């Protein structure tokens, strides 16, 4: 008899029922906000409403998926655009990298120029390597400075660390450098440790130099630093040339075999410095002409 009129229905009136449920609610509120005796109650209700919450999330999920589907079209377009941009940027980035490396190298050379100028009074000119001839027998490079830039044969070529070689041929706008490692090239050197004088020669191999004609009992050790002695007037004194790598002392031979490696990046770099000729006695023109006549 659910549809019976109100005056037939039994049970308490609305206010009484409200009172009961309000009282119950107040108990719950007090319990939940102050005492928390029954955490299980909340968990149980949570389990009951979970399916409803799950269903309530379905529209949001569908909306998200549709959004993703539409966005994927834009993403394709964006992807193509970004790839083009990436390629463009990559080219610039590569340029930047090489510029950075070049900048670092130039800065080093600048420091080297100042050092050399204070130490040896030699002027340094910056030159760039034009190309390295593909000749396995000659260790030579071509620079972009020539006689038009007042380059003369015999000038020393160095980088920020040490000696690279010597100018042997000058053209109007370029010049040829014989590297330290060329088999016909020799530099008068001194051992820093004990000032032993000698001459270091190229062997025709990359990164290998040789100290010839030193007797077996010579006082020389691995890792000895060899610097230019300044004798001969081509190289200013005190520029690092090579470090001793290994020494073979065979008693049956007359001379010790002393292998060393160049300090400078002989086969590296793009920029080098050309030092002005050092004049042994700057005020004596006779001496200069004599040296030049010897060179030629």
């Amino acid at each position, binding site marked *: 008899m*659910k*549809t019976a009129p*109100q005056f037939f*229905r039994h049970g308490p009136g*609305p*206010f009484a*029922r*409200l009172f*009961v*449920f*309000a009282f*119950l*609610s*107040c*108990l*719950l*509120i007090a*319990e*939940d*906000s102050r005492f928390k005796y029954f955490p299980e*109650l*909340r968990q149980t*209700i*949570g389990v*009951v*409403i979970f399916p*409803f*919450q799950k*269903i*309530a*999330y379905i*529209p*949001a999920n569908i909306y998200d998926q549709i959004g993703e589907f539409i966005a994927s079209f834009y993403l394709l377009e964006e992807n193509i655009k970004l790839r083009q941009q990436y390629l463009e940027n990559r080219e610039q980035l590569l340029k930047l990298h090489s510029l950075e490396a070049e900048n670092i190298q130039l800065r080093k050379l600048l420091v080297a120029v100042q050092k050399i100028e204070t130490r040896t009074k030699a002027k340094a000119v910056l030159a760039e390597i034009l190309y390295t001839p593909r000749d396995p027998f000659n260790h030579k490079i071509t620079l972009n400075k020539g006689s038009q830039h007042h380059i003369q044969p015999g000038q020393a070529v160095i980088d920020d660390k040490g000696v690279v070689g010597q100018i042997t041929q000058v053209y109007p706008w370029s010049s040829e450098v014989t590297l330290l490692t060329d088999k016909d090239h020799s530099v008068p050197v001194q051992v820093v440790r004990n000032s032993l004088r000698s001459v270091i020669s190229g062997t025709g191999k990359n990164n290998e130099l040789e100290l010839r004609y030193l007797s077996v009992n010579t006082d020389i050790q691995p890792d000895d630093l060899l610097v230019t002695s300044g004798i001969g007037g081509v190289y200013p004194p005190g520029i690092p040339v090579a470090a001793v790598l290994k020494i073979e002392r065979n008693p049956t031979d007359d001379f010790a075999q002393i292998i060393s490696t160049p300090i400078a990046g002989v086969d590296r770099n793009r920029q080098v410095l050309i030092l002005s000729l050092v004049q042994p006695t700057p005020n004596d023109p006779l001496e200069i002409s004599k040296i030049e006549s010897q060179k030629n």
Partner: protein
Amino acid sequence: MNPKRIRENLNADNYFGQDVLVPANNGYVALSLAIALILNFLPLQGDILIFRPDFVAITIVFWGINHPHKMGMSVAFGMGLMMDVGNTSILGQHALAYCVTVYLTLILGRRLRLFSLIQQAPQIGVILFIMQIAIVLVAISSGSNLPGWQYFLATVTGALLWIPISFLLSMPLRQKPDPNAL
């Protein structure tokens, strides 16, 4: 026949959806409440949250007005507990508010039924406003701050939504016109 009944019958032609509803079965009531609960749990974001009406409250009001014996206070209490857990509010907050709502509809239901849906809307708004005040009172009693006036905008949207929601809920309950009737 009591005079109220006569007055209703006299006004019947002017107002739709009045007293011509067939009794609803329990399944339909439960379904409507479940849908209302789901609507309340919709994961909305941003400014729309301010305007979100309490669908469960509106549904409870509908059944309280149109079928008072279908809407027991215990059901409202249970729905309130579910809302509390789903809203992560204090347990009993919505339960109390819904019980108050049911009480109001039980008292005012028969009077409200005389009005058309559009006329009912502002009065439903008052009921929802009282419900929200109950919620706010419980929140304050447990140490929360007063919400801004925007909180009560949900009442306005609820009152406005009363018209379509009530219309939709009563649709399956309308008596179909009998072609063989006089």
